[in-house]
């Protein structure tokens, strides 16, 4: 599962109620409220599911170390399709229910999804399942039955009526059942007709027998293709005889059914309306004229079916061209046409990826071959980066593009608007996980700068530490110190107190940390320690010269204590520092050349310090002298 910016965690992948909730969050909730263009609605609907499915494929990969079983690929393909169907259902039910006006709007979306599933299904049959002659037709029949589904509503209408066989659409129903090869159901209908009008009972029975005896390949059937062909040939001749004998002359309906079952093109074309599209026509035609059709012969039938069905009245639409390309086993063309016709990259990216796993792209010897999968995935992933939270999916996709995935991710990830701290942290985590140090640095710098501009120095400091940006850490530390000088106190004490090893990032930062430590020690009355630390800050050159005056001033309360804190040695050191500072000689090794101004205040301060130091020196010498003495 994966969190998507606050959205519920997705842990399931099948079609179930949780998925419903997910889709509802993404799609309907947002879409009904705002005015967004259709293409994006679809994107939002499909994306979450796609992610889940993809993970599945890769897990398979790992397990079988490269050798993926066909059955598994088919299963993945079916998963993709179930996802598309789920989207369709969601769209139709939810939107239509909530708002009829919007429902119309989404019907076009549903039709696009339906087309996508249609294409995918065909690709699955031809390219992934690679059904041979025999089973091929059965798959195609299933395919058609799944997609031309007016039958069900028609069936409900007719059967639900009092006198089914007298229903207006009765014969339409029977015809379409025959067209779809659902001969058992057709027979049942005919028996109702036989019951209702005894005059035609006889011919209905004959027709029923014909339907029952049509040889068809069924799973578990042990006959060979040749045997099936032979049987089918016999059956076909029997049907032919009935036609010659005009057995069904008294019933034009039944005669027409017979012609259909004989694969008569003209008869089939008369049923254009019921067939509703050329690929239905194609499959029916194959069923009743060449049920053992070989895959390589498909394209011939496909092209002629399209031509016959359109009859020169209209020209093929993009969907038709895609299907035609599939029947011609021209995967390259399928992908190309889909890229043009469909409005988002999801379909081609995932289909191509799946086909690539089937090792189909290479075998077809595409010029683009190995690069096409990556090309499409890159395009798709790039698109995801536009979305406020789907960019996280985009990251995963880029991870699976071996050639250009990383660099594409590097370029895209820096451009994600960092509206919230939470988002920034997510982006950084992604970069850090992939050792994208440049991007981490760049992003942290942006955030640090923003923090400095908003005077949030603690935040700025932690960002620059995370960026390991010494220069910036120095800059922020300087600001802290300046603030201290102006206000006399530190902000963000927690952060500074807990710098830990990060303190070493820059000299200035180290100084900041140590200086604060000095203040802590003083607060805890650990005067000797505080004194040593203060002195070392100057002698070790960690403290910038510009700050020495402040440090020396900080020493004053220590010098004025009742007990002697600074030793004689230390006092001499302090004096030396003061002289260094007041003389106009820049100290060797120091880059800071800030000189003391001839200021009244400064002069007074210096005088005070000199006095204090002198007094302390005296006391220290006496104390050390007497201690040695005793």
């Amino acid at each position: 599962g994966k969190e998507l910016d606050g959205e519920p965690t997705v842990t399931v992948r099948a079609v179930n109620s949780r998925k419903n909730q997910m889709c509802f969050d993404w799609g309907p909730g947002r879409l009904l409220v705002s005015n967004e263009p259709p293409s994006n609605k679809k994107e939002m609907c499909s994306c979450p599911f796609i992610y889940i499915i993809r993970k599945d494929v890769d897990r398979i990969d790992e397990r079988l170390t490269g050798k993926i079983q066909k059955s598994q690929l088919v299963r993945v393909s079916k998963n993709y399709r179930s996802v598309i169907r789920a989207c369709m259902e969601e769209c139709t039910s939810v939107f239509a229910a909530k708002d009829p006006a919007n429902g119309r709007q989404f019907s076009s979306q549903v039709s696009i999804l339906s087309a996508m599933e249609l294409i995918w299904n065909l690709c699955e049959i031809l390219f992934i399942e690679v059904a041979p002659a025999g089973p091929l037709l059965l798959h195609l029949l299933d395919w058609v039955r799944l997609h031309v589904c007016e039958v069900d509503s028609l069936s409900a209408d007719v059967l639900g009526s009092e006198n089914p066989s007298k229903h207006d659409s009765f014969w339409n129903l029977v015809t379409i059942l025959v067209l779809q090869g659902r001969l058992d159901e057709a027979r049942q209908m005919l028996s109702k007709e036989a019951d209702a009008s005894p005059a035609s009972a006889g011919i209905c029975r004959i027709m029923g027998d014909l339907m029952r005896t049509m040889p068809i390949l069924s799973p578990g059937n042990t006959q060979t293709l040749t045997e099936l062909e032979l049987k089918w040939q016999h059956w076909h001749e029997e049907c032919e005889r009935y036609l010659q004998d005009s057995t069904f002359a008294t019933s034009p309906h039944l005669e027409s059914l017979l012609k259909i079952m004989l694969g008569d093109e003209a008869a089939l074309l008369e049923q254009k309306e019921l067939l509703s599209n050329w690929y239905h026509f194609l499959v029916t035609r194959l069923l009743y004229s060449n049920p053992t059709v070989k895959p390589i012969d498909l394209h011939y039938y496909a092209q002629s079916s399209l031509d016959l069905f359109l009859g020169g009245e209209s020209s093929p639409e993009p969907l038709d061209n895609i299907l035609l390309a599939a029947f011609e086993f021209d995967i390259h063309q399928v992908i190309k046409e889909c890229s043009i016709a469909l409005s988002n990259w999801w379909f081609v990216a995932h289909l191509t990826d799946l086909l690539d796993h089937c090792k189909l792209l290479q075998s077809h010897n595409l010029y683009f071959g190995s690069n096409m999968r990556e090309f499409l995935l890159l395009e798709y992933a790039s698109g995801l980066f536009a979305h406020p939270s789907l960019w996280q999916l985009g990251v995963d996709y880029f991870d699976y593009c071996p050639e250009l995935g990383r660099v594409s991710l590097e370029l895209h990830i820096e451009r994600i608007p960092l509206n919230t701290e939470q988002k920034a942290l997510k982006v950084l985590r992604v970069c850090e996980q992939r050792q994208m140090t440049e991007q981490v640095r760049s992003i942290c710098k942006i955030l640090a700068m923003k923090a400095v501009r908003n005077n949030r120095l603690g935040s700025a400091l932690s960002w620059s530490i995370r960026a390991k940006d010494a220069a910036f850490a120095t800059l922020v530390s300087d600001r802290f110190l300046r603030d201290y000088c102006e206000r006399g106190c530190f902000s963000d004490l927690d952060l500074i107190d807990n710098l830990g090893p990060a303190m070493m990032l820059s000299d200035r930062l180290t100084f900041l940390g140590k200086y604060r430590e000095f203040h802590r020690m003083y607060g805890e009355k650990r005067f000797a320690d505080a004194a040593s630390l203060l002195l070392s800050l100057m002698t070790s050159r960690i403290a910038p010269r510009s700050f020495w005056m402040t440090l020396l001033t900080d020493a004053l309360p220590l010098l004025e204590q009742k007990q002697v804190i600074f030793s004689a040695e230390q006092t001499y050191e302090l004096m030396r520092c003061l002289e260094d500072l007041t003389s106009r000689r820049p100290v060797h090794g120091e880059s800071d050349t800030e000189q003391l101004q001839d200021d009244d205040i400064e002069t007074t301060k210096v005088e005070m310090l000199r006095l204090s130091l002198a007094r302390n020196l005296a006391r220290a010498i006496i104390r050390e002298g007497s201690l040695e003495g005793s």
Partner: protein
Amino acid sequence: MREAVLTWCVPLELLCSHPLPLSAFLKTQVKLYTCRACAGKDEMGKMVSVINTVDTSHEDMIHDAQMDYYGTRLATCSSDRSVKIFDVRNGGQILIADLRGHEGPVWQVAWAHPMYGNILASCSYDRKVIIWREENGTWEKSHEHAGHDSSVNSVCWAPHDYGLILACGSSDGAISLLTYTGEGQWEVKKINNAHTIGCNAVSWAPAVVPGSLIDQPSGQKPNYIKRFASGGCDNLIKLWKEEEDGQWKEEQKLEAHSDWVRDVAWAPSIGLPTSTIASCSQDGRVFIWTCDDASSNTWSPKLLHKFNDVVWHVSWSITANILAVSGGDNKVTLWKESVDGQWVCISDVNKGQGSVSASVTEGQQNEQ
């Protein structure tokens, strides 16, 4: 006259889920196009271009429109002497700022990297370059550079790794480089006579650290070799390199155009050892220049296409895989390099109608 100019946009939220939206502008409107694939088809085969039109209310022709780093803001500049900034999140268009300060048509605008804050540079016929900055929610003029004797035609910010540096190309033939040194101060370096007659375009090379990429000791900056390209009225493209002493030297002359070079664009780096530059010219030609090795200095041009009219602008997408070209014939075309090295036109965005002329793989099809 420049009618259709273009720029690559970081994808706008909800406009196009694909990183190809680009803006082209005619008169006073900025049209944001989506790529061919996302042109909002509502039914299979039926194409409806989704175009977001930003009505800028400029009173005269728009010369440039640039999206900021994150694609949330749009800056436009016009012959009406103003620079406008719009908030274009969520498909909206809210005017944030109307910046006045130029005394002539403003030719180009350029956004600096966000790490420096919200900074915009503009250059104009009035010979000035103005740097605008957003401080506490309001936009103000931050700096004015008046070091040129003639119209300043192009401004381009250097990669953020180098600091805040702006290159400006002018009709006086010079290129000036402004470097921000802190506390509101800008240091100026000028390359005089970079191009005889005038310089029309400048474009920086992506930052590449020579040698190892191990972290430098604290406080020190890595030694970048700074480079940029310029195009001029001498029909030449010149490559400039910063020497160790801080002076800029002409490193290369790229000759192929037979008329004024109107635009140059150095492609973003995608980690390959090749460098790529696109150039376009008054002569209607667009060339793609490639240099295979960082050290060898041989650049080879390849003709992308010869158009029938002047080509005004070339612009690379973020990942440098697609080049957008706009011409005087008011057309914007998108080009992609196929595996065999041929450049193929993948779309034709003509006056707001998205149409497909060929897919990226058609190049191969024709080959086979």
